[in-house]
């Protein structure tokens, strides 16, 4: 029997962690993910789980300790946000290239500066090329579900990569909403026990991890790592299918909301997609064919599948909650734009920057985007309107 509860996103992910009972969690607190190590420490102190919680002095150390623990053979996780992730940067690449299936609960917050604590995707987007799988949540339910699925994906033998399960800072992490939880034993059975093939504490086998890779070998190692990321796509889908059997909730690489016959599509990531769905419904009631594509998996990037899903749209707004300061748009627009070109999509495309540093976005804002798309479909996109900010004073 599923459990009806109400929880914030942080509470929900902490609850998933409690149900999984991982072996090791090194962590350093940072807003808005501070509650995660706090809640897990409580679970440990209350004897609910026997996770080894390691308080460290920095995020560089939390990721380093996570790498050590994972290499030793422990199911490992950590949590962070914003500058904390930035401070892990060096070690993120080490975790991925050492092929360690660490889980990281990332509560998205903008990188400084100006100094700000609110939601933005600049932290995880900055780490998009570090070799980590990235899965994003729209709300507390998805944050919980994604975390329950995380180890199954990361630890799969065809993958063996670390995974970042992301949710929007404050908007999701601190908002209490209804949620349906799985029972402890269902989660335990689903996640299973971690049985690494090779690990440092194995007394039957001596091993070395993270050796120097001379040029004659290093590129081959990277090619193999790239393959693991490609393999992750199918594994994510397989795990989602199994998850549906225990939860009744369906997940893919992305969610299509009223997209099938849509003329105008918004593509976005995270909590804003919930708000956009209400706008889609309002416009559909007026006979306007609006649709939404919510990216769930950003790494691996499902380029071909996205282009296919968007193939009959007349105009598409790609919405970024992170600047890339490329002077050419945000990271989602760069990648999805390239995918649309590669697969010969002819739609008009807008790149809209929204929600930076926690700037709110409303149903009305999304309705206006659909209006702009309808206009673009007929009149084309003016050069200076293609990449622009919405919800800004100008």
């Amino acid at each position, binding site marked *: 029997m599923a459990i009806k509860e109400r929880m914030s996103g942080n509470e929900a992910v902490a609850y998933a962690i409690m149900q999984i009972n991982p072996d090791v969690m090194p962590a350093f607190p940072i807003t808005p993910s501070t509650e995660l190590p706090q809640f897990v420490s409580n679970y440990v102190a209350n004897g609910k789980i026997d996770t080894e919680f390691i308080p460290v002095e920095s995020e560089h150390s939390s990721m380093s300790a996570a790498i050590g623990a994972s290499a030793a053979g422990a199911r490992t996780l950590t949590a962070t946000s914003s500058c904390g992730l930035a401070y892990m940067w060096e070690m993120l690449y080490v975790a991925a*290239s050492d*092929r360690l299936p660490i889980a990281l609960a990332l509560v998205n917050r903008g990188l400084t500066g100006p100094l700000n604590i609110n939601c933005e995707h600049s932290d995880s987007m900055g780490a998009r090329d570090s070799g980590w799988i990235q899965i994003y949540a729209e709300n507390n339910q998805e944050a919980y579900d994604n975390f329950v699925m995380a180890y199954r994906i990361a630890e799969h033998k065809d993958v063996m990569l670390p995974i970042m399960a992301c949710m929007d800072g404050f908007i999701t992490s601190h908002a209490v909403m209804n949620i349906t939880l799985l029972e402890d034993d269902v989660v335990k059975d689903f996640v299973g026990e971690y049985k690494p093939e090779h690990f440092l504490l194995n007394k039957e086998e001596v*091993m*070395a*991890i993270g050796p120097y890779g001379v040029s004659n070998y290093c590129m*081959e190692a990277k*090619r*193999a790592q790239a*393959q693991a990321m490609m393999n992750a796509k199918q594994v994510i889908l397989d795990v989602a299918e199994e998850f549906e059997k225990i939860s009744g909730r369906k997940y893919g690489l992305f969610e299509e909301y009223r997209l099938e016959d849509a003329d105008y599509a918004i593509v976005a990531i995270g909590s804003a997609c919930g708000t956009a769905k209400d706008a889609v419904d309002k416009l559909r009631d007026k006979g306007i064919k609006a649709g939404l594509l919510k990216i769930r998996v950003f790494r691996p990037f499902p380029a071909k599948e996205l282009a296919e899903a968007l193939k009959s749209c007349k105009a598409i707004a790609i919405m970024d909650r992170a600047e890339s300061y490329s002077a050419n748009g945000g990271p989602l627009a760069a990648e999805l734009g390239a995918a649309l070109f590669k697969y010969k999509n002819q739609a008009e495309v807008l790149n809209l920057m929204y929600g930076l540093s926690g700037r709110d976005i409303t149903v009305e804002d999304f309705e206006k985007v659909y209006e702009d798309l309808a206009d673009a479909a007929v009149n084309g996109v003016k050069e200076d309107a293609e990449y622009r900010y919405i919800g800004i004073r100008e």
Partner: protein
Amino acid sequence: MLEDKFKTENIDETVKWQDLTPGLQIYEKGSSRLFNTGEWRVNTPVLDFEKCKQCLLCVPYCPDSSIPVKDGRRLDFDYDHCKGCGICVNVCPFNAITMKEGK
């Protein structure tokens, strides 16, 4: 059981990316022995067994573990791995080791 292809003795520069270990991990001990760093040597230390008092001071100083010890006595250099750094020459209190030019 470790797959044969993952044994270090079977890995060389002809191996394709598909057949290397993930993250270039190594699943055996002492695999560095398979790499003959002695090939890098420009100058070679030579031991005068007459002068050597078996104090063994050279042994811990050798950065490449190239001075084998058996039954409390050092043997001749392991020239497969000695890189010819000359540290042993410097630390020997009895001037029992000299450097010769070339291999």
